[in-house]
């Protein structure tokens, strides 16, 4: 199956072979007797947006959790940028360049926008006790640098939040919380971004805005690859280069949105088999 889109094949023809950043092979994850992921193979090409879709309980979020080290895989291997990351603990997966958002915008509501975003690059901050508690002028320099970096990031992705950088996140509507969550995930300049149902809990209008912003993201971060889990098919059709469809933990189809939308297996998975 051709995993490149038309526009990308054109780009790649000029620059050589496409780089596959994430390679998952035969990933299996069981919960008791339930097979949540069944021999899943999945590739992500640099700069592409991959849509991961499927009915409820088909294993999409489980894949994210296995990939980011929250769950261990029972079998299989995952490599990222040619490094083996299978079953590494979550902090190490993050350090290898994979950042994510969560299904229910898991931002820290009582903390400020700045606090939330700065947490997104935890490994780069100096964590020594002496540095933090007693070398306050050095700490202040690092802090001011961070304020500047957070401001730049917000100016790029959510300019209206710049002036409200020190206000608690709980004062913002859902769409801004999502934006903050995406900014937190982008703050460390990851190579792979995992978006878990970014449209959940938002209105149609808000979803449309968010899609535009994700599309704009691509032009700002060329090397960033994205996997997006989504139920909103309109969103999937507008932004993905390629889709993988899961059903009961197995991949049932892969291709461009148009290809998978006309696939019989996919229609059956979503609508049921005719009797």
């Amino acid at each position: 199956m051709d995993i490149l889109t038309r526009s990308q094949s054109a780009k790649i023809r000029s620059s050589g072979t496409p780089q596959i950043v994430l390679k998952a092979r035969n990933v299996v994850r069981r919960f008791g007797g339930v097979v949540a992921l069944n021999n899943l193979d999945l590739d992500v090409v640099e700069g592409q947006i991959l849509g991961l879709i499927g009915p409820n309980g088909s294993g999409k979020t489980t894949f994210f959790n296995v990939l980011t080290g929250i769950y261990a895989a029972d079998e299989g291997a995952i490599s990222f940028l040619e490094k083996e990351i299978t079953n590494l603990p979550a902090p190490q997966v993050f350090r290898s360049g994979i950042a994510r958002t969560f299904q229910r915008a898991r931002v820290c509501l009582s903390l400020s926008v700045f606090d939330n975003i700065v947490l997104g690059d935890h490994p780069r901050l100096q964590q020594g006790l002496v540095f933090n508690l007693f070398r306050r002028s050095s700490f202040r320099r690092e802090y001011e640098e961070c304020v500047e970096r957070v401001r730049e990031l917000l100016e790029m992705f959510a300019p209206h939040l710049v002036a409200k950088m020190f206000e608690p996140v709980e004062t913002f509507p859902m769409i801004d919380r999502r934006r903050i969550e995406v900014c937190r995930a982008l703050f460390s300049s990851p190579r792979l971004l995992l978006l878990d149902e970014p449209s959940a809990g938002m209105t149609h209008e808000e979803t449309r805005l968010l899609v535009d912003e994700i599309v704009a993201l691509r032009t700002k971060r060329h090397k960033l690859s994205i996997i997006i889990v989504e139920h909103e098919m309109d969103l999937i059709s507008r932004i993905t280069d390629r889709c993988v469809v899961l059903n009961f933990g197995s991949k049932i189809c892969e291709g461009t949105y148009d290809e998978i939308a006309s696939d019989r297996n996919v229609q059956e998975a979503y609508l049921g088999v005719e009797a």
Partner: protein
Amino acid sequence: MNSISIYRNIFVSVLLGTLFVVAMMMAESQVAVLSLIVLAAVSCIVLQKKGVIRKLGSDFASAEKFANGTIMIGALATAVVFAGDHFILLMLTTVLIYVVACLGLNIQFGYAGMVNFAGAAFFGAGGYAAAVLTMQTGLPHLVVLVIGGLVAVIVGFLLILPVLRTRGHYAAVVTIAFSLLFRTLVEVSPVLGGAQGSPVTGMVIFGWNFNEGYQIAGFDVSFYINYFLFALILTAVTFTIVRRVERSWIGLNMDSIRIDETASACFGMNVARWKVTAFTIGNFFMGIIGAFYAMMLGFIAPNNFTFGDSLIMVSIILLGGIGSIWGIILATGIVIILPEKLQIIQEYRFLIFSLGVILVLLYRPNGLLSRAARTYFPGLLRGAR
């Protein structure tokens, strides 16, 4: 808003607060004490309704150094007023001791979200360290204080594995069990004096004997003034360190793991590291101040750190406001002084505190003085301009 009025407001409110504390200490009859309590409660409610408390809060925040200095002077002035009174100085010093212990607990419970019902046990560990070291060795007492803190930390390490592997209620049960276990262990240990307890030497630092009073111009000054002043210094140091923890990446990490451990791990945070850090710093403060407390009393027994005392420490934090340093200081004052002054409630104090905690949780879930949003460097221009 001009700055003169900010300074004036701070000065006037600290002055009023100090006068209130002095009046409270002086009040002898139960009627006088009760009316003072009612006066304070009513004026707080009225001021809150009129928005004065809010305004004062922002004034205190905008001139923090001045406010802290003024409060320090207010505390010193109170000590001067009661310089001759053993009982009142002892009570005020006890407040400061509990403030330090609760600030330690606040790092664990308020910041990192680790429920610790063994606060009094770590306090007692420091106290027993002081007993053994002052009676058996000639170590300088400042060193004894630090070792008291370290002993509490080491005792805490025994608990670290179960605490790291449990969350919420289960972690609470682990610490409750430990608290009871520790007390029983001390009670049956002949080396530590068993149920009778053990004597502790009074504090001497660089020849400054804390157990000697003074005569100034024919006026007898209680020796407790030494303990009060030293406790005030310890409180100021602890206050500064806890503030800096809050206003650094460390405080941010702790907040983050309290709110969402999984998300923190997904952003590269070593959750266990920050739990251990919070547990260690908190126990260190509890141990140091426990050692100091033992030296002040000249005696330590298992009864000085019952499970009830651990509960009091947790309820102080709930009452004052989880994570709120000033809230904890206020709540400690209320919880320690109230039963002493209001003898009629002595027997019912646990009942009254539990009622207080329930009322606060129902109507002011963030505590009497809720924690303010983090400012890393107060006074620095916030936000974008």
